[in-house]
C-alpha cells in the first residue's frame, strides 16, 4: 500500500522525537536505578540485616563503604548524594564527604561502624537508615506518592507527609480551580458576544469576528507581557483609575490572582467565542422568533430554546479552554504571584532549579492524567448531549 507508506515518515518522526522522549521522561517518576544501582551491596546487606538499637550491623557498614568508594571512583557520588538528600534534607555533604573518605581508604579501620560514625556522625541517624532500607529495586513509588503529599512512613505503610511539606495537593486543586474559574468566566463573557456576532448585519459580524480572531495570531507571550505593561503601577489602567478619581494611589494589580484571571481570560476567550459561534450559526433564528410569537418572554425563550441548542458549543469551547488552562505555564509564571503558580510551574521548577527529575516527572504524569480525565469527561458529556438531542 503506497499511500500508507506516505504516512510512515511522519508517524516515525512523532514517535521518535515526541512520544519516546515524553515516555522516557515520565518513566523517571518510578525510576530508582540511580539509587539502587549505586548502593547494590548496601541494599543486599540491609535486607539480610537484623537491626539492633536502631542502627544496622557491621556488615552493612562495610557494604556501604565499599559502595560509596565505588560510586566516588565512577564519579556518581554527586547524583547519589542528590537523591538521598531529596528524601532526607541535609544529607548531601554527608554522602559526598563519606564517599571521598571511602575512596581514599580512610574508612578501612575495623570496626567500620564505629570508625565511620566517629568521623561522620550523620550515620548514627536512624531515619537515614530507614530511608536506605526502603531502596529495594530499580523502581520506587516515592515520587508518585510525594506528588500527592503521601509518603512511606513507619513499617512502610502509606501515610500523609507532615503538613509543612504538603504542597502538591494544594497546587493541584489550585490548578483545577483557576482553570474552572477561567472557563466559566470565558463562557459567561463569550455568550452575549457570540449572540451579537451571529445576529449582527454581515459587515459588522465580519468585523467583530476578525477582532475576536486577531489576538489568536499574536503570541501568547506577547499578550501576557502586554498585560504586565497595562496593569503595572504606572500603567494605563492605574492612570485611568486615578484620573477618574476612583483611587487615590496606584493599585498593585499585576502579579496577583486578579491579573492572572484577566490575562488568561483575554488569551482564551477567542477559543470560546469561536466554538459557540460555530454552533450558533447552525441554529435557525426562526426558532427564537417562534418561541417569542408563542408568548414566551425573551429571557424564557433564550433559556428554553436557544441555550439547549447551543449547549454543545459551550461544552466544546469549555473543554478547550479548561484543558488548555490546566497546562498553562507562561502566563502564571509571568503575571501571577507566588501563590498563583500552577502545576506546570512546579514541573519546570523541579526539573530546572532543584534537578529533582523524579518529582518533576511524577507531577507531569499527574497533570497528564488529570487532563485526560477531564477531556474524557467532556467527551462523555458531549456524547450524552448528542444522544439526548437525537432522541
Amino acid at each position, binding site marked *: 500500500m503506497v499511500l500508507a507508506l506516505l504516512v510512515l515518515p511522519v508517524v516515525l518522526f512523532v514517535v521518535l522525537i515526541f512520544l519516546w522522549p515524553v515516555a522516557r*521522561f515520565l518513566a523517571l517518576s518510578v525510576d530508582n536505578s540511580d539509587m539502587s544501582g549505586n548502593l547494590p551491596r548496601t541494599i543486599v546487606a540491609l535486607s539480610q540485616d537484623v537491626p539492633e538499637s536502631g542502627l544496622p550491623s557491621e556488615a552493612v557498614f562495610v557494604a556501604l563503604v565499599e559502595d560509596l568508594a565505588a560510586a566516588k571512583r565512577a564519579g556518581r557520588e554527586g547524583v547519589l548524594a542528590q537523591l538521598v538528600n531529596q528524601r532526607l534534607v541535609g544529607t548531601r555533604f554527608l554522602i559526598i564527604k563519606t564517599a571521598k573518605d571511602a575512596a581514599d581508604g580512610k574508612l578501612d579501620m575495623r570496626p567500620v561502624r564505629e570508625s565511620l560514625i566517629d568521623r561522620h556522625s550523620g550515620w548514627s541517624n536512624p531515619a537515614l537508615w530507614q530511608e536506605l532500607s526502603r531502596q529495594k529495586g530499580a523502581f520506587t513509588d516515592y515520587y508518585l506518592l510525594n506528588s500527592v503529599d503521601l509518603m512511606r512512613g513507619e513499617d512502610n505503610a502509606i501515610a500523609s507527609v507532615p503538613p509543612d511539606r504538603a504542597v502538591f495537593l494544594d497546587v493541584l486543586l489550585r490548578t483545577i480551580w483557576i482553570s474552572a474559574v477561567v472557563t466559566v468566566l470565558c463562557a459567561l463573557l463569550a455568550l452575549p458576544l457570540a449572540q451579537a456576532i451571529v445576529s449582527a448585519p454581515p459587515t459588522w459580524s465580519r468585523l467583530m469576528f476578525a477582532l475576536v480572531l486577531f489576538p489568536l495570531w499574536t503570541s501568547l507571550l506577547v499578550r501576557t507581557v502586554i498585560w504586565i*505593561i497595562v496593569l503595572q503601577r*504606572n500603567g494605563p489602567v492605574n*492612570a485611568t483609575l486615578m484620573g477618574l478619581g476612583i483611587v487615590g494611589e496606584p493599585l498593585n494589580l499585576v502579579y496577583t490572582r486578579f491579573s492572572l484571571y484577566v490575562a488568561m481570560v483575554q488569551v482564551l476567550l477567542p477559543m470560546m467565542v469561536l466554538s459557540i459561534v460555530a454552533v450558533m450559526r447552525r441554529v435557525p433564528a426562526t426558532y427564537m422568533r417562534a418561541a417569542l410569537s408563542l408568548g414566551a418572554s425573551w429571557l424564557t425563550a433564550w433559556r428554553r430554546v436557544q441555550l439547549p441548542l447551543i449547549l454543545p458549543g459551550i461544552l466544546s469551547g469549555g473543554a478547550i479552554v479548561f484543558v488548555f488552562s490546566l497546562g498553562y505555564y507562561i502566563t502564571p509564571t509571568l503575571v501571577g504571584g507566588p501563590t498563583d503558580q500552577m502545576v506546570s510551574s512546579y514541573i519546570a521548577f523541579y526539573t530546572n532549579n532543584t534537578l529533582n*527529575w523524579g518529582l518533576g516527572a511524577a507531577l507531569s504524569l499527574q497533570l497528564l492524567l488529570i487532563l485526560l480525565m477531564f477531556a474524557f469527561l467532556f467527551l462523555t458529556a458531549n456524547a450524552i448531549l448528542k444522544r439526548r438531542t437525537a432522541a
Partner: protein
Amino acid sequence: MNADVFRKWLMYGYSALLLSFIILPLLIVVPMSLTSSNSLAFPTPGYSLRWYEELWIDQRWPNALWNSLVIALSTTLLSCVLGIPAAIGLAWGNFPGKKVIYAIIAAPLVVPVVIVGVAAFSFFATLGLVGSKLSIILTHTAMAVPVMLTTVVASLSTFDRTLVRAAASLGAGTMRTFFKVILPLIAPGVVTGAIVAFIISFDEVVVASFLSVGNERTLPRMIFSGVRESVSPAIAAVAVLLILFSAILLALIGWLQVRSQRMRMRVVA
C-alpha cells in the same frame, strides 16, 4: 418593541466593551513603546524612536530574531516535507489503524508544553544536542506537523481525484503529477498550513527556553527572560513589532482565502 431595541443596543454596547478588552491592550502599547523616557509609563511623557533604535544597536535582539527566523523557516519546511505526503496518504489511503495514526500525530497538541520542553531537554541532553538549533527545530516540527496535516487534509477533501488518473494516463510520472497537478491545486491549504506552522515555531517560548542557550536564544526566549527581570520599553517595542508581524501574516491568510475562493468560482464557471 422598545425592549427589543434596548436589548439590541445593550448587546452591541456589551460587545464593543468586550472587544476593546480583547484588542485595546494590544493597541495601547504602541504609544507606550514610543516613549522617550527610560521606563514605561502612561501617559507617555514624550515620544521618540530611541527604543526601536536600541533594538538595532543591541546585538542580541537582531541575533535572536535571526535565530527565530532560521528555526521557524526550517520547522515550516520540515513540516511541509513530512506533512504533505502524509496528508495525501491519510486523505486517500484505505488502510487499517487510521484512527491510531491520527491519535499519534495529534498527541503533541494535547501534552502541556512544559512536559514537552522538559522531555525534549532530557532527550536531547543524552544526544548532546541541547543548545543547538536542530533540537529546537525537531521539537517544533513535532508540534507544528499536526496543524499542517489537518489543513492539507481539509484542502484535499475538495480535490477531484480523477485529475491524478488523467495526469497518469497522459504519461506524467508520480513526481510530475504531484508538482504539476496536486500541489498547485492544494496550494492555498499548504500555504495556510505553512504560515500556521511558521507562527507556532516563531512564537514558541517554553521549548525554546529549555533548549536554547547563550547566542542561540530565540526572540521569545529573549523576551521571556527579559520580562522576568524588568519590563523595559525595549520589550514593549519588540511586542509592538511582533503584533505588526502577526497582523501582516493574518492579512496574508485572508488574502489567500479570498483568492482560493475566487479560483474555485472560476473553475465552477
